[in-house]
């Protein structure tokens, strides 16, 4: 044992312990998972329609936030254009799954199955991404942000004017997911259970969100995801590792657009199956950016938490009137108030916890573990701070 060997032993002990690789790995996490599943089952069975609406909205927006996180969080390509791809996905769903026109001016609809129009919404949005990507991805940072911002306005213009597809400014009806006679939008009795529309949608959305989250998690722990993150961290370095920068960025752009398309179709369908072209606006796009930043950049759980925070929470505050409504026309509306709160939150998180809520939770976990170790009489290993270093590696 030489001197450096001993030093290395000390270093090795002070280095953060391996973080669980799987999305739901480790026995402790399994316990948490079972608890969460039980809790969700209880919520699903007994929660009121208000709560289910909040959860469902959170799940739909979580899918879009995951899509944005793939491109901006993992691959580091700033995008404000997610609503453009959501719109493309939504109108693909509308054309393929919508009702055939009754009167001459009605928007088109082919009345195809939900099993066709939902994947198609993702695929067409991904194709749009593949079309726009080669031009947009020549730019970096702010310039890419500006180009994707322009996409939103191009989208708004197209959506308002393509009347036969979008119904024009007053909007159009969207298809309702279902199989044969069954639809997710109508209450049905199964095995003696009276299930409401929101309960059905809850089931549908939790399955889709689960699949999407697992897919993104898998991508990020395999070759393509490592390339995304290398491109984000250092382009020259990534190229030297053999990563084709253009290919990696395009892959991220296409996957991101695919998820945005799926989320867009669901966002148009749930809850009212009706949307105006103005739905796909810049404010919504920025809300997704906020959800990603507040929840956790480059994190699957962070995307879900961020969506809950930015989309679920205001809905909850509104639904249960937790914020006093403004009575005069000149005062703050609840919309203004939430815009101010979210602006402030983004700034606070950027300044004090760039890793988002996920990093905050991990920091607290680490602190609890340390204090437990100390109580057991173990050595307090604070030599190297672990909370930050492990934050965005997942």
């Amino acid at each position, binding site marked *: 044992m030489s001197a450096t060997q001993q030093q290395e032993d000390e270093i090795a002990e002070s280095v953060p312990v391996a973080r669980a690789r799987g999305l739901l790995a480790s026995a402790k996490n399994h316990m948490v998972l079972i608890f969460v599943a039980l809790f969700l089952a209880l919520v699903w069975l007994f929660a009121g329609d208000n709560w289910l609406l909040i959860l469902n909205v959170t799940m739909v927006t979580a899918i879009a936030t995951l899509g944005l996180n793939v491109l901006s969080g993992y691959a580091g390509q700033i995008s404000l254009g997610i609503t453009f791809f959501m719109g493309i996905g939504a109108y693909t769903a509308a054309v393929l799954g919508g009702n055939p026109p009754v009167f001459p001016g009605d928007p088109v609809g082919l009345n195809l199955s939900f099993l066709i129009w939902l994947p198609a919404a993702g695929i067409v949005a991904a194709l749009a991404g593949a079309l726009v990507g080669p031009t947009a991805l020549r730019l970096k940072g702010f310039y890419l942000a500006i180009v994707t911002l322009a996409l939103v306005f191009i989208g708004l213009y197209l959506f308002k004017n393509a009347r036969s597809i979008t119904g024009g400014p007053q909007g159009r009806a969207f298809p309702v997911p279902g199989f044969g006679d069954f639809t997710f939008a109508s209450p049905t009795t199964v095995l003696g259970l009276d299930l409401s529309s929101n309960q059905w949608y809850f089931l549908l959305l939790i399955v889709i969100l689960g699949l999407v989250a697992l897919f993104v998690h*898998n991508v990020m722990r*395999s070759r393509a995801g490592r390339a995304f993150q290398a491109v984000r961290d250092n382009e020259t370095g990534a190229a*030297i590792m053999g990563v084709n920068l253009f290919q990696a960025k395009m892959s991220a752009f296409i996957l991101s657009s695919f998820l945005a398309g799926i989320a867009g179709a669901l966002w148009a369908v749930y809850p009212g199956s009706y949307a105006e072209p103005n739905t796909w606006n810049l404010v919504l796009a920025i809300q997704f950016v906020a959800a990603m930043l507040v929840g956790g950049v480059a994190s699957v759980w962070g995307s879900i938490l961020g969506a809950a925070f930015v989309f679920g929470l205001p809905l909850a505050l509104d639904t249960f009137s937790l914020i006093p409504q403004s009575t005069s026309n000149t005062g703050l509306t609840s919309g203004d108030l939430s815009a101010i709160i979210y602006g402030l939150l983004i700034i606070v998180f950027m300044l004090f916890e760039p890793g988002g809520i996920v990093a905050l939770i991990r920091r607290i976990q680490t602190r609890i573990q340390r204090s437990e170790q100390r109580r057991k009489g173990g050595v307090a290993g604070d030599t190297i701070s672990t909370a930050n270093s492990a934050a965005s590696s997942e």
Partner: protein
Amino acid sequence: MNTQNPPNTATAGATPDQPLLLLVENVTVRFAGVTALDGVSFAVRRGEIFAVIGPNGAGKTSLLNVLSRVYQPQSGSVTYDGRDLLRLRSHQMAAAGVARTFQNLGQFPLTTVMDYLLLGRHAHMRSTVLLGGLYFGPTRAEERSNRAYCQHVLDLMNLARFRDAPLGSLPFGVQKRVDLARALAMQPRLLLLDEPVAGLGGEESRDLAAILLDLKEQTGITQVLIEHDMAMVTGIADRILVLDFGRVIAEGSPAEIQANPDVIRAYLGQELQNQQLETGQ
């Protein structure tokens, strides 16, 4: 790497009849009026350790950046293994069997050691976004076998204990060895080393020199290293090229270089003076 043999200088310079792997001819690089490399030519044989030395600003790093396709030279040619290297894109170098290490680390501070090595395996893996997302069958097998390969490299380099640590949390010397391990995980035929011992202490430098010699003897990987540390270079290199102000001023065996008056004037003299000042002699 105390488990390995000390540097064996007896075998150095034993590759004169090996065929060429790398041929650099008349390479010139200019930046806005500054000539970083001025008609540099040299040849590297298979299996040798070829060192490029020179004082600060001599063009060493520019040369390495040309060889790893970060810089495009204004004129000249680079032939690697019979092909025109300058026609490859920088991301194609890994697949062509050229790996390089970094002088200044910190490009990937949050990446864990294992993920860094796996990133180095990028060109050896195939799975795409779709296959990776589904993560079944071939992708899972590929991931597993490459993980095993990286674990093997980490074991060899005595780095297994740092496997799950983020690079940024490790001391500089360990990071340097991880970076070398990553380059080796790329299974290169030509290894470009950018100041491998810069910033390391005496013992760490000697360990690293021993690793490089072991690599030469056990794997036969051709190494081109640029370095500041004259003692380290003369200890392990088969041949040395000396650059000054972007031009080649000498080329030869370590003994020839040490005896060359131009080199002593341009580089060694200054170095010796510094050493004498430092040691107070």
